[in-house]
């Protein structure tokens, strides 16, 4: 198998993904190749978090040629928590696993707004000061997707990954 592989078992059986090694938790599949670590940043999951994590990167995939997979054990991530990752990987899917069975599966979808994830690129923005505000963006979903700072109205024209807060 090409690509790195960390923990758990990922196998391609008749074109279907089977996930082993996680009894309860969340599997985020079909992450755009190379974005697994950014997904974790957006979810606020780091080496300091309690969750057991498995990360697979550059896994061969029928759909997209290559993909990343993240598994978070013992925690069922809610759509509102996970949908934020659609910013960087719009085709990811969320699988909620209980007793080793996928009981819920859905594609991520962009939220209408996003708070505390991205920094406003405008250095003079009030959200980049010591005022008690978290950076907040309003998302317009009609393609091309646009993010506008709630405070200063500036459009995010840069790659969002460059402006991740964590």
């Amino acid at each position, binding site marked *: 198998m090409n690509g790195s592989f960390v923990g758990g078992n990922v196998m391609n059986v008749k074109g279907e993904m089977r996930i082993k090694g996680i009894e309860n938790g969340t599997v985020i599949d079909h992450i755009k190749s190379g974005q697994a670590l950014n997904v974790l940043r957006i979810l606020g999951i780091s080496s300091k978090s309690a969750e057991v994590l498995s990360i697979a990167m550059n896994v061969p995939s029928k759909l997209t040629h290559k993909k990343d997979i993240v598994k978070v054990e013992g925690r069922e991530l809610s759509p509102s928590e996970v949908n934020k990752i659609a910013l960087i990987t719009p085709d990811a899917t969320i699988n909620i696993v209980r007793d080793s069975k996928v009981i819920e599966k859905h594609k991520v979808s962009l939220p209408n707004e996003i708070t505390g994830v991205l920094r*406003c690129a*405008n250095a*003079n*923005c*009030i*959200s980049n*000061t*010591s*005022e*008690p*505000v978290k950076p907040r963006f309003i998302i317009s979903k009609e393609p091309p997707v*646009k993010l506008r*700072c*709630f*405070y*200063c*109205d*500036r*459009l995010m*024209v840069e790659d969002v990954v460059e402006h991740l807060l964590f």
Partner: protein
Amino acid sequence: MSIGFSKRHVISMRDFSRDEIDYILAEAERLEPYAHHGKTSDVLDGKILANLFFEPSTRTRLSFETAMKRLGGEVLNVSSTEGSSMAKGETLADTVRVISGYCDVIVLRHPKDGAARMAANCSDVSVINAGDGTGHHPTQTLLDLYAIRKEASLDGLSIALVGDLKYGRTVHSLAYALTLYGAKIYLVSPEELRMPDSIKKDLNDLGACLEETSNINDVIGGVSVLYMTRIQKERFMDPVEYDKVAGSYRITADMLKDAGDDMVIMHPLPRVDEIAPDVDETKHAVYFRQSFYGVPVRMAVLSLLIGSEQ
């Protein structure tokens, strides 16, 4: 037409549809007689406006003060230069929470972009943005639109925005509002002070009709409004460069020979030397009336926000 303005905030032109803007401008027209000496009104009797200014802007402050007083209201002036808690490092959020308990409407001027939006979230009363950073100054835009409506026409308008289109806070929201009216907009500026790409993209996505040029003489003959702005010395590292650039965006009476009879010249004032004094005497100069229009426009905004019978 009934449009609810009561308790709203006035933060960005983006908060208003074209219908709402037309409604405000019509209200300004109705109130204009009260902005002159003579006719009096007491529709804001018993109401208090707090001017909360974190950077000086005497003209804007006085314009709001006059508007409020012409409608019978009271004004509190708070500035960050008087050893107040604002100067002692209190957050803007806290200051606004406190001041909103003392008044019916807050007029805020602040150096940071987006400060007014944040203030609105902390305030129990309407907040009017009187300029935040390089961001918005919606009542300036409304008065500019009102001036265009009075002195030229908002329909089928062709306008040149001249000078500092990069940092000039008035031109960004004006360009946005003019796009709602389908105006043809010429952006006339030196290379280094061009309108930022993010703003141009934004306007283009809304269907704006923009054309850039760096030569003011290209547009004088073809536009109905020439909107001049100040090019600030501090934007240039090299004073020689500043002199060179500023000199080529200076308008004199001589240059107006090709201008249409009805062409009007506007300027948010104060000007430095981008409009030569000999232009003042021409029929094209409307910038002093433009400045006066700030009063009826702010009267309209105030009465719509906090007037009782809305």
